[in-house]
C-alpha cells in the first residue's frame, strides 16, 4: 500500500500506536465532545472536596438546635458543642483538639472513595484512566486495582457496613429535628425538610451500593431457594441501576444540609418553621 503514513518502527510507541495495529497517528478520532463528562465530573467532585474540607476543618457553626450538620454527627470529640439528646459521645476524650468532623467523616469518605461509581468517576475525571471510551490515556503503564494501594478498593464492603450505623445516626438526627428551638416535639421547619430529604437520599445511595446488592442476594447461586433474598436483590437491583444518580444527589444533598445548618447556626438565615 502506497497510501498514507508509513508503519511505526519506534518500539516505545504505546497503546493504539503499537506496531502491528492499524497505522493511525491520531491517539483518538472521536469528533464528539467526549471531554465534557470527565470535566463536569472533575469540577463537581472538586467543588465538593473544597467545600467539605473547609467545613470539616472549620469546627464551627455546625449545630443550631434542633439541627446538626451531617458532617458533625455523631460528634465524638470532647470539644463538641452541646447538643441536647444529640449523638454526642466524647469517645476520644480531651486529647483530640481538632475538628470533631474529622473523626466521623473518614467513614462516609471511605465509603464513597471505594464506591464502584465514584471509582469510575474519579478514574476518568481526575486520573484520565481512561478520560473517555476509546480516547487514549496518558499513562505509560497500568496495573489497575491489582496491587497496593488500589487493591484496597476491595474493602468497599466494610465501609458499607460502617455506612449503615452512620446513616442510622443521621436518621436519628432527623427525628430530633422534629423539635423546635426549645426542644419541644411536634414541630418542623425548612431545616427538618432538608435533613429529611438528605437522609432519604443517603439511605437510597447506601442501599443501591453494589456491595449491598451482593450481600443481600447477589452472592447466591440459587435465587429460587431464597425467595425473600431474591426479592430484596431485585429491589436493590432497581436502586443500583440508579447508583450514579443517587451518588450525586446524596452528595449534593449532604452539602446542602450542612450549608443550611451553617447558615442558620451562623445567624445568616432564620429557619422558617412550618408548624
Amino acid at each position, binding site marked *: 500500500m502506497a497510501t498514507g503514513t508509513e508503519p511505526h518502527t519506534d518500539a516505545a510507541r504505546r497503546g*493504539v500506536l503499537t506496531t502491528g495495529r*492499524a497505522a493511525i497517528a491520531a491517539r483518538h478520532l472521536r469528533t464528539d465532545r467526549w471531554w465534557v463528562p470527565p470535566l463536569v465530573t472533575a469540577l463537581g467532585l472538586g467543588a465538593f472536596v473544597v467545600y467539605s474540607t473547609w467545613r470539616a476543618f472549620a469546627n464551627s457553626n455546625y449545630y443550631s438546635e434542633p439541627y446538626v450538620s451531617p458532617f458533625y454527627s455523631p460528634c465524638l470529640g470532647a470539644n463538641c458543642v452541646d447538643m441536647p439528646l444529640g449523638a454526642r459521645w466524647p469517645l476520644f476524650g480531651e486529647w483530640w483538639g481538632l475538628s470533631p468532623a474529622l473523626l466521623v467523616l473518614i467513614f462516609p469518605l471511605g465509603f464513597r472513595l471505594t464506591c464502584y461509581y465514584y471509582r469510575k468517576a474519579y478514574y*476518568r475525571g481526575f486520573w484520565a484512566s481512561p478520560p473517555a471510551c476509546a480516547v*487514549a490515556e496518558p499513562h505509560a503503564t497500568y496495573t489497575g486495582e491489582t496491587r497496593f494501594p488500589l487493591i484496597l478498593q476491595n474493602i468497599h*464492603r466494610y465501609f458499607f457496613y460502617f455506612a449503615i450505623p452512620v446513616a442510622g445516626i443521621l436518621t436519628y438526627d432527623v427525628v430530633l429535628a422534629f423539635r423546635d428551638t426549645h426542644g419541644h416535639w411536634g414541630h418542623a421547619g425548612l431545616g427538618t425538610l432538608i435533613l429529611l430529604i438528605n437522609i432519604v437520599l443517603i439511605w437510597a445511595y447506601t442501599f443501591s451500593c453494589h456491595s449491598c446488592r451482593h450481600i443481600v442476594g447477589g452472592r447466591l*447461586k440459587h*435465587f429460587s431457594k431464597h425467595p425473600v433474598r431474591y426479592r430484596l436483590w431485585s429491589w436493590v437491583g432497581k436502586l443500583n441501576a440508579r447508583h450514579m444518580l443517587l451518588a450525586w444527589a446524596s452528595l449534593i444533598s449532604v452539602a446542602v444540609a450542612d450549608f443550611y445548618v451553617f447558615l442558620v447556626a451562623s445567624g445568616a438565615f432564620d429557619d422558617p418553621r412550618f408548624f
Partner: protein
Amino acid sequence: MSTYTAHFKVWRGDTEGGGLQDFDVEVNDGEVVLDIIHRLQATQAHDLAVRWNCKAGKCGSCSAEVNGRPRLLCMTRMSLFGEDEVITVTPMRAFPIVRDLVTDVSFNYAKAREVPSFVPPAGLAPGEYRMAQEDVARSQEFRKCIECFLCQDTCHVVRDHEENKAAFAGPRFLMRIAELDMHPLDAAQEAGLDRKSSAQDDHGLGYCNITKCCTEVCPEQIKITDNALIPLKERAVDRKYDPLVWLGNVIRRRTP
C-alpha cells in the same frame, strides 16, 4: 426517498502501513454505515476488506470504529450523522491489523480457551436438568453476547497497554467467568475449581477499574460492568478479602 452524497474517510492499509482514504459516496434513506462500505466495494474499491455476516446486529462480525467510537457497522445508521459531516471509519484499534477494516482478533479466541468450561453436575443425566427461570436469568443476559469484541477493543486495559494482554482476559471473558459462576448447575466448585478467585488470580479481574466503557459500547446492551464484573469482584472479595470468611477458613483448617 432522499439521496445525498456523503464524505467518507476509510482507513485502508495493512501491516506495512496505510492511511485514511477519502471517498464521496451516495447515501439513501434508511441506510447504515455498512451499506455505504458495501457501496464503496461495489463501485469504487472492489478489494476493500471488511468483515460482515448477518447485517442485523446478531453475529457481531462488522465491528469497527466510526468517528473514533467502537461500533457495529450494520447497526450504525447514517441518520446519526449530519449530511455534511465527514465520517471516518477505521478498523478496531486494540487489535493487530490484517487489512483495511479487518483486524486479527485471535487474542479473543486465545482468551476464550483459557476460561475453564462448564462443568456438568455429577449424577444428572441429560433431560434431568431442572433450573428455575430466575436462576438462569442472570447468566442468560451474558449469553446474549454476540462476541463482536467491541468491549475488548474499547477496554483501555489492553487498548492502551499492549503489555497487559497476557494477563488480562478482557470484559467479554471475565463476563464468561461470571456467567459460569452464576450458572445454577455448574459444578466447578465440586471439581476443585474456584472460579471466583481464579477470576482474579488467573484472568486479571483486578486490572478492571470499572470505568464502564465495555458497557457503553455493548451493542446488546448487556450491563457488563454492573451485572458481571462488579458482582465477580464482590465474589472475589468473599474469597480473598473478607476477614470473617478468612477467619472461618482458618478455624476450620485448625479443627481436625
